[in-house]
């Protein structure tokens, strides 16, 4: 940033000073030089300008919420299942496994058990397992849209019933998409919502009868389930139970 060869030895000192990395003795030497050198003062200004611009104009990317949720879920699983809870877990075949990756995955798989749900058992555990599987990057949504009129028709022809689709963005639960999933061996519509940085999956499938909301907790995830209007609903998330219940209440009061 300067053409004066005599200043070459000072350029890294000017930079270190700019970066807050200069020792006391060097700082004193630099201060004397700067007083008499317009070129080095110009370098100093350019460094300040460049840093200010980089820090204001260039994005510092944040980890996507879905990636964060997936990693949290994977590490929670690898840390061991919650006491008294058996989590069905089927690892996705990941692409391009290195040896280290395979070893770590084997480690993660070794601390969880695959057991089919017992007959008559509430499907909350399977709902949680399905939710965790879906949190793998790229598997959360088959159709990405915040528009219920895009998400609802997407299920036409993919599933033999028409799930109700609603957006609660105004209440802080925006719809972000949907996908086809399988719950207890049958296809089920999964609607995906966000609450702040938490992912909520809402599974919807046909069901006769009504059921008041119930709350389950499995492996750190909360599940709120209810039935009505010919459908069974199960909402699952790592969101706290109170807010997840609020989400369920929005749905139930909005349903005809």
């Amino acid at each position, binding site marked *: *940033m300067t053409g004066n060869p005599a200043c070459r030895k000072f350029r890294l000192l000017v930079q270190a000073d700019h970066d807050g*990395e200069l020792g006391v003795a060097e700082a004193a030497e630099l201060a004397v030089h700067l007083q008499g050198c317009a070129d080095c003062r110009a370098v100093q200004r350019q460094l300040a300008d*460049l840093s200010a611009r980089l*820090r204001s104009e260039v994005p510092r990317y944040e980890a996507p919420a879905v*990636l964060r949720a997936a990693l949290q879920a994977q*590490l929670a699983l690898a840390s061991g299942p919650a006491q008294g809870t058996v989590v069905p877990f089927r690892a996705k075949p990941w692409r391009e496994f290195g040896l280290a990756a395979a070893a770590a995955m084997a480690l993660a798989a070794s601390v969880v058990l695959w057991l089919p749900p017992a007959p008559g058992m509430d499907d909350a555990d399977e709902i949680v397992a399905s939710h965790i599987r879906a949190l793998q990057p790229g598997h959360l949504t088959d159709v990405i849209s915040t528009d219920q009129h895009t998400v609802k028709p997407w299920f036409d022809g993919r599933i033999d019933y028409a799930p109700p689709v609603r957006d609660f963005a105004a209440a802080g639960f925006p719809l972000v998409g949907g996908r086809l999933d399988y719950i207890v061996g049958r296809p089920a519509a999964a609607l995906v919502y966000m609450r702040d940085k938490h992912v909520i999956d809402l599974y919807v499938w046909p069901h006769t009868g009504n059921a008041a909301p119930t709350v389950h907790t499995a492996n750190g995830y909360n599940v709120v389930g209810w039935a009505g209007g010919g459908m069974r609903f199960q909402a699952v998330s790592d969101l706290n139970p109170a807010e997840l219940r609020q989400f369920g209440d929005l749905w139930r009061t909005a349903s005809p």
Partner: protein
Amino acid sequence: MAEAADAAAFARIALPHLDAAYNLARWLVRDPVLADDVVQDAMLRGLTYVRSFRGDNPRAWLLQIVRTSAYARLGARRDAAEVPLDPEPASEIIDEAADPEAAYLRGERHAALDQALAALPAELREIIVLRELEDMSYRDIARVLGLPLGTVMSRLWRARRALRLPVEETAR
């Protein structure tokens, strides 16, 4: 179970620095989907090597792993070990602006600073990301990049010089 304890320890070390990990991955591979994969790789690698973590500076430790994972992915792409679904992102992996200084001397103006940064060679790009976006000290940058301090300083200077927009005299 020791392995479960490792995972819990790793979660405490790594999750607070997930944004830093993603940011470095994203700037190194310049593709959001590939950046996801890189962070996933780094988490698995980190989980495997968590016992080598000595308790100081978790962010530098994690970013060192992210960097290794990013270059492994880029290398895999370059070697055509993976056939890209879309040829467009793969072509971006190769540093098209191999000589930003020459471009500068020709008097070309960068459209925007983030594009100028994206166009830098990876070794210059990563040091700007660590210093300016992650606000890391020279010592931590030296650790992430595996370089002596003096090289960190001279490379950072080169990177900044390459980014500088044509404002004043062009003498070198």
